[in-house]
């Protein structure tokens, strides 16, 4: 049963990932990416990595991809120009990809990864909480890595702000409170001027 599920999700994952790269419409490509994430999450679920699986769906599918879709739809991407040269580069790319796939396959099918060398770990009972276990090691054994990861997030925030926030002194803002507070003397000045003499062009 589990292997059937695995092959199902794995097939979906590979196919959808391939579609992400090959399909013309960027919106569809993003949606296929969502599908591939989802398939991956399902595979993780079968491996009893429930927390990671849910996190993947929540974070990537729920947040990152939605944001990504927004961006894709907001930008007017000229698909044709991006795909220029695709056919020309395809043979080389396919060759390299093929070689890579063969090599990975050779490695993965070696005896170091068969069921004898890496037997399937024993399953846990229904009261086993993946989340709790993860939390335990995260806040004890790996607290250092966790803290540094926190720093990474902090830097990411700082980076996002510093790279996007621009102070433009020339930009004009509307300040309602300022507008409300003004009184006549601040905005209105009455100047007396002598009357203009009429210019006589004919002279």
């Amino acid at each position, binding site marked *: 049963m589990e292997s059937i599920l695995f092959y199902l999700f794995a097939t979906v994952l590979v196919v959808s990932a391939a579609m992400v790269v090959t399909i013309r419409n960027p919106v569809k490509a993003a949606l296929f990416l969502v599908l591939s994430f989802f398939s991956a999450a399902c595979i993780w679920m079968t491996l009893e990595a429930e927390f990671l699986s849910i996190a993947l769906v929540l974070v990537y599918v729920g947040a990152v991809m939605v944001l990504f879709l927004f961006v894709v739809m907001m930008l007017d991407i000229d698909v044709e120009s991006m795909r220029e040269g695709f056919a020309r580069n395809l043979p080389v790319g396919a060759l390299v990809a093929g070689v890579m796939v063969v090599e990975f396959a050779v*490695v993965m099918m070696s005896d170091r990864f068969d069921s004898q060398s890496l037997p399937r770990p024993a399953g846990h009972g229904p009261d086993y909480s993946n989340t709790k276990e993860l939390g335990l090691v995260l806040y004890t054994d790996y607290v250092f890595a966790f803290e540094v990861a926190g*720093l990474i997030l902090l830097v990411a925030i700082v980076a996002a*702000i510093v790279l996007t926030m621009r102070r433009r002194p020339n930009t004009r803002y509307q300040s309602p409170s300022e507008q409300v507070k003004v009184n006549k003397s601040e905005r209105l000045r009455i100047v007396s001027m002598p009357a203009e003499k009429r210019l006589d062009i004919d002279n």
Partner: protein
Amino acid sequence: MTNQDILVVLPEIVIALMACFILVLDLYLPATKKKKFGYGLSLVTLMVGAGLSIVYSEPAPVYGLNGLVLMDSLSAILKVGICISTGFVLVYSRGYADARGLWKGEFFALALFGVVGMMVMTASNHLLSLYVGLELLALCLYTMVALRIDSTAASEAAMKYFVLGALASGILLYGMSLLYGLTGTLYINELSASIVRHDGSTLPRTMALILVLVGLLFKIGAVPFHMWVPDVYEGSPTSSTVYLATAPKLAGFAIILRLLADGLGSLATEWQGMLLVVSIISLALGNIIAIAQSNIKRMLAYSAIAHVGFFLLGILTGEVSGYASAMAYILIYAVVTLGAFGVILALSSKGVEADLIEDYSGLNQSHPWAAFIMLLLMFSLAGIPPTIGFYAKLSVLQAVVNAGMTWVAVVAVVLSVIGAFYYLRIVKVMYFDDLATSHPGLQFRPKQDARILLTINGLAVVVLMPWIGKLTTLCEGAIEVLF
């Protein structure tokens, strides 16, 4: 958690806290005081970090925080090197960054967080801590490259760096996960023994090794994973270039030493061949392409590639003396590169980027002292005696010859001679060409502290020569305890 756990990472903690403090301070201080306080505090923080690294250093490894990090003299030396070179970076870039609106709290915070990342890298004994350290540094670097948001070149460079860096991180992670699958451990000091323990196919461990190797080589910018280097060096503001060209190299050395020489030491015969190819093509490509450059930052980028090739020669000997020579090499390289970029920074005034080689023509006539400092630094980069750059090259070559690879040494020397051309071209342009008339000419107006430091930096490449043997002894002592 014990006291020792804290002591092992005390410098990192202090610097991270101070970086946060500077960020917050930046919000509340009036604009006039911001720069002064941020600058001063950053320098003090770096000094404290360096001091703590020395004070709490132990010659033999002391593990802390569940074995994720360690403290030994290797990490102590490199941490001090990282702190000091970052301090130099701050001093040198002040005038430059100030004139371009980059001199703000985020700059200090990013630099300091980057220092934390590098320190974590040098001190990591665990693939996880190594990786998070790497990413922390990388993120800081990406941001610092893009810091000049009005510059398309900077944004482009940051984008390239980011995309390629993500790719390299993926490859590195893949390799690490394979390692974990093969050995069942993430502790670097346990990898070496357990990776050769199992019988069966050796293909998986070779693949893991290669993927990890590729990730590491990308970080230090070795051919063929170097493509980001020239674009990033050229595109980023020089104040960021000087940062990413110096201290991260030290951290890169640390992770290469820890992961390859220590963690995967039992596979030395496998990675030696690959490193050999990488270092020779790095030397060749770096030195040859640098000749055709007209931009001095880009030229220094290719020179960095070539120097990485050279220091890898020391690593690939697989011996303690080789590692020590590589360490001395990279430390000396950091000192000299700091100076070279320092001169470029000092010559760039508001609105003038001193980054074209032709800008330097006749510099000796207008600013003889700057030209002289640059001459010393170029000689040192080219490895001409009596500069410390010569000693660095010599000790690596000695290690290579002692390891029985005389022909490699010969090739390296030939390629270095080719490389000497472009360094000496700078000297030729500065001393023998006439003052450029087509543009306003460079002004050498560093701030007082930068001027003093630059003079010390420039003269150091010659003056330190008599004591340079001590550096090797220090490095050897630091590395010996690991093996």
